[in-house]
């Protein structure tokens, strides 16, 4: 089983430690993981802004880059689900396909559903509040959406439960959007800012020290607000907790 690590552009540029933790975590779980060089962007920002066609070349590149792998695994639910849900359509006229969309996983989903570890060496003696991101919940099914009448489940909580010393909570309105939404955060910055402030406040109200999520984009948005308003909470990507001590 050969796994190609997918590191989205903003993680590459702003949160490389998330990429490092992802790699170490997969290695520690005995996964044969490699990083195909010179990755850039999956194309989601342009597509969500309304310029899907501008993502086409990127999708082609991406597809080729990961040709030799059985799985593609990345630490960003939103980017992963973009590949999964849109590449088939974007590349439908391509003669040669490596079908990235069929073999791409969010890292939490991959560990939870494919590797299924019983334990992790990690320890993180802190109270964390889960950021259930919209695309993670409603498109990738990492947890049960609050709107649906389905039994509760949460893959992030399951994985975090393997960490020693951790206390896990979820905020009120557990999967309401934090307001990032790519260019939405810029075009509709008043609403986006309000959503982000409301979200961060609900995380703070749980008494947690950290907001933990599987999408660095939501965390980046909330970090920007926390820093601007000097709020008493920090953000952390889930892989950094799961890989703690590696």
């Amino acid at each position: 089983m050969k796994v190609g690590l997918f590191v989205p552009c903003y993680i590459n540029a702003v949160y490389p430690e998330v990429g490092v933790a992802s790699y170490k975590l997969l290695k520690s779980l005995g996964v044969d993981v490699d990083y195909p060089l010179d990755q850039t962007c999956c194309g989601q920002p342009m597509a969500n802004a309304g310029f899907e066609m501008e993502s086409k070349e990127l999708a082609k590149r991406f597809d080729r880059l990961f040709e030799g792998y059985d799985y593609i695994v990345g630490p960003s639910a939103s980017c992963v689900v973009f590949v999964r849900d849109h590449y088939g359509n974007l590349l439908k006229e391509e003669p040669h396909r490596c079908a990235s969309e069929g073999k791409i996983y969010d890292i939490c989903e991959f560990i939870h559903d494919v590797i299924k570890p019983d334990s992790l060496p990690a320890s993180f003696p802190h109270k964390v509040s889960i950021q259930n991101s919209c695309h993670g919940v409603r498109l990738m099914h990492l947890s049960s959406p609050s709107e649906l009448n389905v039994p509760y489940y949460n893959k992030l909580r399951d994985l975090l439960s393997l960490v020693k010393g951790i206390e896990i909570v979820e905020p009120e309105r557990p999967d309401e959007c934090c307001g990032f939404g790519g260019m939405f955060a810029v075009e509709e910055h008043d609403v986006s800012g309000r959503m982000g402030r409301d979200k961060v406040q609900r995380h703070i109200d749980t008494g947690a020290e950290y907001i933990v999520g599987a999408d660095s984009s939501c965390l980046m948005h909330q970090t920007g607000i926390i820093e601007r308003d000097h709020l008493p909470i920090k953000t952390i990507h889930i892989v950094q907790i799961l890989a703690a001590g590696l």
Partner: protein
Amino acid sequence: MSTKHSKAAGAFLKNREMAAWHDETLWMVRAKRDKMSKEVPEWEQLRDAACALKMYSNSHLDQLLQEFEKNALANGAYVYWAKDADEYCKIIYNILSGHQVKHFIKSKSMLAEECGLNEYLEEKGIEVVESDLGERILQLMHKRPSHIVMPAIHIKKEEIGELFVREMGTEPGNNDQTYLTHAARKNLRQKFIHAEAAMTGANFAVASTGECVVCTNEGNADMGTSQPKLQITAFGLEKIVPDREALGVFTRLLARSGTGQPITSYTSHYRKPRKGGELHIIIVDNGRSQILADQEHVKTLNCLRCGACMNTCPVYRRSGGYSYTYFIPGPIGINLGMLKAPLHYYDNVSACSLCYSCQNVCPAKVDLADQIYRWRQRMDGLGVASKEKKLMSGGMKFLMERPALFNFALKNASIANSLPRWTLYNGMNDWGKEHEMPKFVKESFNEMWKKGKV
């Protein structure tokens, strides 16, 4: 970078207290909806059934509408077909003037709103009285609804108190909701009794029986249609359902989704005219048959107009109904506006963070967020894409297609961290208005990998 929606939303959010109240109140309705849906174990199957029934009925409109017409005629009703808003207004005016109606009482109808019926009739000298409390308040204030189910959700009781002092002679300063509601009850009771004709919309039109079904909590549709003997009922043609068995599905979903009640207080079935009275039914197209051809957006015709997508929409709750330029706000309004006239209503397409919550609450499974995503893809072709967004997307594309350039940019991006604050946080930087900038690292992941540091 802005749209009419984003600007209006900014203005709405300036009143912090009101905006927070709006968000909390609508969230409460969403929470009631969640509770209701979870009391029905077969909830998700119900939604599937509702969607499948709508897909069936909307793909058999020609047959079902004719079946409805045949049965309605056999029941003794008059049936009219209106191509557009103008024809709909004219038909109603002709019925009213033919019966010398001067006083006309209406229950809530979004179709009437869509077609500008009140203005049309008032210009011709007919007094139109809205009987739904929220609609009546707005009519007296000369305002339009800000929500399709809770039309006056944006108005505070103090304003209503002042309005009722003028209009209904209530005690000044008494803004108690029960007091004000009962004052309106008394006032409107006389309007019901003295009206010469009453009108309703319809939530459902049943092909197999030729009956129209109207759901209200106030009982205003029934108060109206049980007084004057002249009744007019009009509906958009997608309101057709095959039979009463289908109603079993829809009536279980509608109120639970919309207001978080197990059912509305009144689910009224109008099949025949009253003894010695007349029932006039108008089937309205006004662009709907055109939507059938648009495979990407045909599911908007599934909409039951329950309002659940508005209540759950984090953007709607924080921007209010008036921030949208189409008369129906929220996720369904964004899509219906684009189907009506994209060049007029494209400003609403920005009002979505693509969180997909609307899709999960919709009782008839309209793919609301997917449709908004698709509209965004069509904006450039329509010539209405945001220039800044296009520039940003183009720039990103250029950069991301060139890994060497991307790596070069990454290497130098951290320079931005040390720029003077005013160069980063000025009026030009919409991100910087709400957030601190993300800090670019000195060594990107690509760089670290190459150096063997991972």
